[in-house]
């Protein structure tokens, strides 16, 4: 028995369900704080040796949209985590300012920008998919998306792809 077999076996027996081997992550929103977690989880899953697919739906499509992915903003209205009054979050320029601040912090930690992150998770072998219903809803086409997008798929395709793994809705 190889070391890989030996240790995979002990990991499987330590937990009734065994280790997670596949994750399918859904990103449905377009704010910076709602895109990064899904990307980090997908990258982390691949780094752990799991299979990973990321499914972008609804406003989450902005993360893979050629012209929009570089302009993702922090949501400053109705975001209590920012600890600023909601009325202040709605003032002109506040979202841009907070985004700049967050981007600076993210860069300082050597976390890639969203376009670079999408490229990186694609390089790790994670699947990058757009939701067909949302693509139709927003009247988008394949050419509107970055080259890393593997396909535009239906929800049925998604479930088929996700079979046997965990689905994570971020």
């Amino acid at each position, binding site marked *: 028995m*190889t*070391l*890989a077999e*030996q*240790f995979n076996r*002990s*990991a499987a027996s330590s937990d009734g369900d065994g280790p997670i081997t596949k994750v399918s992550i859904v990103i449905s929103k377009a704010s910076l704080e709602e895109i990064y977690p899904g990307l*980090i989880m997908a*990258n*982390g899953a*691949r*780094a*752990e*040796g799991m299979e990973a697919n990321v499914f972008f739906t609804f406003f989450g499509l902005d993360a893979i949209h050629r012209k929009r992915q570089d302009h993702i903003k922090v949501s400053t209205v109705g975001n209590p985590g920012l600890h600023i009054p909601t009325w202040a979050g709605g003032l002109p320029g506040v979202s841009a300012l907070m985004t700049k601040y967050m981007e600076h912090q993210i860069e300082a*930690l*050597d*976390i*890639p920008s969203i376009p670079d992150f999408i490229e*990186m998770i694609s*390089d*790790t*072998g994670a699947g990058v998919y757009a939701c067909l219903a949302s693509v139709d809803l927003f009247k988008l086409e394949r050419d509107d998306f970055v080259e890393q997008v593997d396909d535009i798929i239906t929800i049925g395709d998604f479930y088929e792809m996700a079979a046997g793994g965990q689905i994570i809705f971020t």
Partner: protein
Amino acid sequence: MNIARLAGVDVQLNDEGFFVDPEQWTTEMVPQLAEEWGVPGPITDQHWEVLHFMRKEYFEKGTGPTVRKLGKSADVSVGVKELYQLFPDGPAKLAARCAGIPKPKGCI
């Protein structure tokens, strides 16, 4: 504690199969480690670049690099995509096992 016999030496591994004492590692153990952990193909210069960088980072910083750091390092000539070809199923984790260091810490 788990004991594995590598290149004629009894080595201590933790519950996840990482070396407990990186000083026990020798280059002679690498071909066997690579085979045991399922690294495909023969060990190339690129594999060695990665393994040496893993150890260098570990001894300098107390933890091995993440895949992103490996991909960006000037000491490693390959990017993220190739790292997943050299060490499938998690390059940093697999390379750490072959380089005889603990599991690298880091989220990205």
